[in-house]
């Protein structure tokens, strides 16, 4: 089971002077159970790409398959199948807290499951579960207005609103943008937990190479609407030329290790997480 993009092309405002090709024949597969990050310069087509994953944007050419179902159903039966396939992909937008609208946290999170046509008891159960998943206590927060919360908490509520629909795939578009370091750290741990404990397949757009190195297994690099490279995070970060051409920087720890190596220390310059870096330094200095 996977999400598959086949020759997906997307053109903004076709046949006007503002026409722009945002995606150009993108082919990729996101396997179930994987943690995939998408990186690339601003305007490289990352956000456009992820909006295809649950059919919010319809490709100008090519097709998107979720678990083998084309998201663009032709006849009625295919449309219903496509609708169910789209429900499998939860989507968390940039600054997701701007989508909150209800009077209480509970009501807002319940919006998605209610639209799925679930009964009240089931909805309540899902809200409770989703709130615990993102680390908000159901008892304390369910009757609070979402607009009385801090920015980080509001974003958690928004993510819970998506999780309550129990998607198989979770797409997050720069989920940590604009959060303070602590909020960011908490959110990243939450996402990691969702992946490890709850087996959610995660697609994650980010500008932070540190977050990508720490969390993701696979990395897709976008450049000018094209899929420039795809591979494991270690592979991509090891390709210095690719990073330079696409305007990405390797994670800070990797830069440090590379400089140490240049200075003559026999450290492992392919370490992409602080933990791996520390491990390598320990070995070099024989510290246990």
């Amino acid at each position, binding site marked *: 089971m996977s999400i598959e993009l086949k020759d997906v092309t997307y053109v903004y405002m076709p046949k006007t002077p503002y026409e722009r090709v945002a995606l150009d024949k993108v082919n990729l597969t996101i396997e179930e159970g994987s943690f995939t990050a998408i990186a690339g310069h601003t305007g490289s087509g990352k956000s456009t790409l992820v909006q295809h994953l649950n059919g919010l944007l319809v490709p100008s050419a090519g097709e998107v398959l979720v678990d083998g179902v084309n998201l663009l159903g032709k006849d009625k039966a295919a449309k219903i199948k496509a609708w169910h396939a789209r429900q499998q992909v939860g989507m968390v937008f940039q600054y997701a807290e701007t989508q909150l609208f209800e009077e209480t946290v509970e009501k807002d999170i319940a919006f998605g499951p209610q*639209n799925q046509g679930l009964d009240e008891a089931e909805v309540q159960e899902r809200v409770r579960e989703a709130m615990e998943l993102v680390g908000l206590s159901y008892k304390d927060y369910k009757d609070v207005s979402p607009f009385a919360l801090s920015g980080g908490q509001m974003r958690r509520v928004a993510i819970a609103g998506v999780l309550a629909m129990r998607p198989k795939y979770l797409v997050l578009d720069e989920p940590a943008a604009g959060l303070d370091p602590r909020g960011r750290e908490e959110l990243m741990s939450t996402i990691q937990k969702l992946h490890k404990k709850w087996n959610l397949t995660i697609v994650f757009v980010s500008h932070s190479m540190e977050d990508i190195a720490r969390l993701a297994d696979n990395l897709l690099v976008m450049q000018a609407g094209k899929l420039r490279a795809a591979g494991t995070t270690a592979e991509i970060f090891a390709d210095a030329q690719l990073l330079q051409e696409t305007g990405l920087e390797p994670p800070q720890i990797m830069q440090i290790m590379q400089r140490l190596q240049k200075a003559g220390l026999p450290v492992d310059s392919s370490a992409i997480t602080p933990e791996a870096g520390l491990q390598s330094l320990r070995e070099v200095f024989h510290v246990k």
Partner: protein
Amino acid sequence: MLNNIMIGQYFPGDSFLHRMDARVKILLLLILLIEVFAFTSAPVYLIMTVLTFLMIMISKVPMRMVLRSLKPLWWIILFTFVLHLFSHPGRELYRIWQFVITQEGVEQGALISVRLMLLIILSTLLTFTTSPLKLTDALESLLSPFKRLGLPAHELAMMMTIALRFIPTLISETDKIMKAQQSRGADFVTGSIMSRLKNMVPILVPLFLSAFRRADDLALAMEARCYRGGEGRTRMKEMKLGRLDYVAIGVFALFSAGLGVSYAL
């Protein structure tokens, strides 16, 4: 979903019409529209139509886009035409039960329909060739003589500029919120009118919130840069009449005089 809307439908270009002073364009358009009303006759409308197509060609705006601006008003034009068909007494052409189509009715209906189309196409040509910003600047300048009567020309223009500036922003915001709620299973397309209205709440609440926040931020940013109204304010782009504009005015005056004489004869 909403990204196919064009605001003020400005079509960037570098034609004669694009380079003309916006104030001159507005004034000439006004006079031209008055002439369309004043000289209602078939030959004049024929000349006017030729002139209009000539201007579209000069402006290099694709004909298809100009004609598309007629689309929303298509039904009104058709309705007007049909109404005129039956409402003029005269030589009978065709009879449907009580209603009589007359020769005069057909002529009047055709004239009025052409008049409507001319009005729409000429006005859209102005917005096609003038950026919204230039348009508001021109309005401010044209309205400034009325300041003495207490008309806040600068403030009105500033309000319009800000509104225009934020329409695309709010549209992209709406688009994003709609997509977010659609991802949560919201349905804006099917259902009864009541349920569809109810479904607007998840869009409107976040949209208003963000609009108010943006308004607050903008007010603060303007105040931080010492904005205090139009008094003694200079501009980055001064509006000046060039040779082009005098030529346009001259040609237009000749054209109008010709029309007036030929109509009187």
